[in-house]
């Protein structure tokens, strides 16, 4: 092999040089981000938001704690109070540490009322750690910002469809009111 003519004529070296020369005349694949933006894929998991019931204006969470249990990075902390007469749970605070979140989407998947969602909004940052630890107020704010930009009727993820969950239970449409009633849980009037 060492004395073969292809080796002595540097065939492999010249081939390598030609490959880089060919790439030199090709269009670069770089996207210059702040000047031009990429299309986000439909299954993209971005900033967290808490879906607000448009009728009552309150967060849709029922404090079932499923998201908190399923979360692999344990970034969700829920405070709630129980009504002693009816046994009804009432959400007091919902804290989500976006710094610890791994964006797996399990909370979104497991939520029975479609309350917590990962929106397609990816341009967010903070100047300190507190900016990226979302409490209930911030999560609601995130949802409002997202809804203002969203132009389709329902916010849904195409790539995983929950079995037996009606369209109504998907996160709310843009501006139309949609009342969700779940058996056994009484929504505050």
């Amino acid at each position, binding site marked *: 092999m060492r004395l073969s003519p292809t080796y002595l004529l540097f065939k492999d070296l010249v081939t*390598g040089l030609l490959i*880089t020369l060919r790439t030199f005349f090709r269009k*670069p694949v770089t996207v210059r981000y702040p000047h031009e933006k990429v299309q986000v894929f439909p299954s993209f998991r971005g900033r967290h938001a808490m879906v607000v019931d448009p009728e009552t204006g309150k967060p849709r969470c029922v404090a079932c704690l499923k998201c908190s249990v399923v979360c692999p990075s344990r970034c969700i902390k829920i405070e709630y109070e129980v009504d002693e007469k009816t046994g009804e749970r009432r959400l007091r605070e919902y804290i989500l540490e976006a710094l610890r979140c791994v964006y797996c989407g399990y909370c979104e998947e497991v939520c029975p009322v479609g309350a917590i969602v990962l929106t397609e909004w990816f341009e967010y940052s903070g100047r300190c750690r507190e900016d990226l630890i979302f409490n209930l107020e911030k999560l609601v704010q995130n949802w409002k910002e997202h809804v203002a930009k969203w132009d389709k009727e329902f916010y849904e993820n195409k790539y995983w469809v929950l079995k037996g969950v009606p369209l109504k239970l998907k996160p709310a449409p843009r501006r139309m009111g949609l009342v969700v009633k779940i058996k056994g849980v009484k929504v505050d009037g």
Partner: protein
Amino acid sequence: MVSNNLFLEILLILIKIAVVLGIVLLHAAYTVYAERKIIGRMQARLGPTEVGPYGLLQPIADLLKLLTKEDIIPLEAERLIFLVAPLIVLTFAIVNLSVIPFHPSFIIADVNIGILLILAGASLAVYGIILGGWSSGSKYSLLGGLRSAAQVLSYEIPLGMSLAGVILAAESFKLSDIVNHQAQSFFGMNAIPQILGFIVFLICAFAETNRAPFDLPEAESELVAGYVTEYSGFRMGMFFLAEYISIYVMSLLIVHCYFGGWTLPGWLLTIFPPLKFVPAPLILLIKVYFFVFLFIWVRATYPRYRFDQLMSMCWKILIPVSLLNFLIVAFLKRGGF
């Protein structure tokens, strides 16, 4: 009268030095930009784009950044040697420019032993690297310096041997004589009869300038940055400036010794007569630019050599091949070419 003439001569030399330094420093600064841009395009991405139109002001921004940075001297360092080492490298890189002709009538010092002076400058510049590496007081720097010393020492032998063929063909150490001899010779350029010597010289030029694929002294993935690890600010800038100037020196040397400098071979002129009207500096410039492009092109293409591969290639392949080239030139010379 005599003193007046002496004064004029000194003034003329100073003006020449200023012109050469200005042109070469500008070229060195924009070679950094060209390198980033070309390597970027060869890896299917854009180079610098933000500063100025097409990122053209990037070298100036880099220069300003380097000049205003703090000059850090490590606690473990040998202070005096640490401060002087980059200056040694830069000085001997610039000294090499003084014996290279840029035009038949434009040369700073037309000495009899031009080629040998360039080799001497290259061999003395190693001291800057090895002393800088040692005086930093860091393991990475010391290893980078030692590697560089071993590499440059070994590769100077085939470099000189391949140049010996050129010197034998032209019977002179002067670069201008070598260029003139090629213009009158049968093939028009040394690269055709001495193709072996040319290949050896090209490989050794990459090794002498510490460029990829022989950039072992500053291998980023093994030694952090080799001998420049502890340097910062404009002292690091001096090392880089010296590297880019030595790229130009090596390209000029290749063009002068193997591609006929500012002349075109006679057979090319008979095939295509209009080439006679191309000005001499333009021919030189195009040839030099091609070799600088080759330096960058090779850096974008090939992976780094291992150190034992580097050494065995030098001693087992390049030195015998350069000796063979020397013998071929001797026989051609006897045959009357």
